[in-house]
């Protein structure tokens, strides 16, 4: 009788709970609070935080080979399936018009990747391995799916920490960009009104994803999974003849895979992998990466202005940290504070969407160099 009772008690999770599990629950509830009460990236942080919560119950086998979350993680993330599917949806909502009208902005999107490399080298100094440092650096690109993609490829054990860092800093873009931008620009530079953009024809918009694929995938073949899907989504939208595919890519498909992505990422955050000093370093380096990226864009914009006649407002360089369209909105706000007649939103969209491409290319370059 007593023996049976002990057996029943032992088969519950209660006695197998560890302090680590409890701390991870606290982390999960903290993220849930941010997502639900503060509106911080709720579409991602709600599934991620619940994934952390559920994966930290003992004896469930959710994350053991064959377990439910393991299946999401293994089939969706580890084999790099879901991030490219999200890129399909992103492509189907990205308007490349501002880039086509002002191709210089592509350079600014590339310049912001300086932040990625600055954080990469700093992480090396902190003693992270080359692969780990690359995954930490890519946080500065402010692109969640790319961060997860690269980490699945190079350092799966860091995935939980880097993706949570990327998504939470993305929500903090309105706090991170303004001090950096104000430090590096004068009020007069911020007040500068840019020349109105030329209209872009439908033909140009259809050709753009094809030309961009040609150039980027030939140069950095390892960026193909992300870029090819991104450009396909864009072609869906710009061709105008497959409205149903455009809609399903950016709505239903994206929403569905987001659930599996969030749960799978959250479930990687077990106490053993997450509760380490390196997690704290990742968060510190992540915010540095963001700041460096904004600074890189602004400085290159200022340098570019030395050589060109049609000058750009250096603020739009800060929009090169992808975080679409949040970074562009913050830049617009800064410009409008300096001069109410200054409407930078659409100008900032150029570096902003170019930043997405830039980060995907940087990830491809890391994979090529490190593998």
């Amino acid at each position, binding site marked *: 009788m007593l023996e049976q009772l002990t057996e029943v008690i032992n088969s519950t999770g209660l006695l197998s709970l560890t302090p680590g599990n409890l701390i991870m629950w606290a982390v999960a509830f903290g993220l849930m609070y941010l997502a639900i009460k503060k509106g911080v990236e709720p579409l991602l942080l709600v599934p991620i935080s619940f994934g952390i919560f559920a994966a930290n119950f003992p004896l469930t086998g959710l994350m053991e080979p064959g377990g439910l979350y393991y299946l999401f993680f293994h089939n969706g993330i580890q084999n790099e399936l879901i991030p490219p599917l999200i890129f399909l949806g992103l492509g189907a909502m990205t308007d490349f018009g501002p880039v086509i009208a002002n191709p210089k902005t592509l350079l600014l999107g590339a310049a912001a990747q300086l932040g990625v490399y600055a954080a990469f080298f700093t992480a090396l100094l902190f003693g992270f391995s080359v692969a780990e440092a690359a995954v930490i650096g890519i946080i500065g690109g402010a692109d969640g799916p790319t961060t997860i993609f690269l980490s699945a490829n190079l350092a799966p054990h860091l995935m939980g920490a880097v993706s949570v860092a990327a998504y939470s800093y993305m929500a903090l873009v309105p706090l991170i960009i303004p001090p950096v931008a104000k430090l590096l620009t004068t009020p007069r530079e911020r007040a500068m009104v840019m020349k109105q953009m030329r209209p872009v024809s439908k033909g140009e918009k259809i050709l753009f994803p094809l030309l961009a694929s040609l150039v980027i995938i030939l140069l950095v073949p390892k960026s193909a999974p992300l870029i090819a899907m991104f450009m396909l989504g864009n072609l869906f939208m710009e061709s105008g003849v497959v409205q149903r595919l455009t809609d399903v890519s950016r709505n239903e498909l994206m929403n569905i895979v987001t659930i599996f992505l969030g749960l799978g990422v959250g479930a990687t955050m077990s106490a053993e992998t997450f509760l380490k000093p390196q997690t704290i370093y990742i968060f510190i380096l992540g915010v540095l990466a963001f700041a460096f990226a904004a600074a890189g864009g602004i400085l290159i914009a200022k340098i570019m202005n030395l050589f060109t006649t049609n000058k750009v407002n250096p603020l739009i360089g800060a929009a090169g940290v992808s975080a679409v369209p949040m970074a562009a909105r913050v830049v617009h706000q800064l410009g409008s504070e300096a001069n*109410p007649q200054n409407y930078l*939103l659409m100008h900032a969209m150029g570096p902003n969407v170019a930043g997405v491409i830039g980060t995907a290319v940087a990830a491809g370059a890391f994979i090529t160099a490190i593998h």
Partner: protein
Amino acid sequence: MATPVNSPMVGKLISVDVKVGDQVKENDPVATIEAMKMYVKIYAPASGVVKEIKANAGDVVNPDTVILTLE
């Protein structure tokens, strides 16, 4: 000489925040548009009296659209 107030970018006109006959100063907000899911205030390019309102809330506006004129 009437000064046209155009939309600075493509967007949806949410509201015109002044009435015909209102006195506005340069850099006063006169209208609100929505672009990239963000409300963008449009500020008067010059001081004057609102002469005519030429667009309605809900209209899609672009840089060629005159929202209102000032005199």
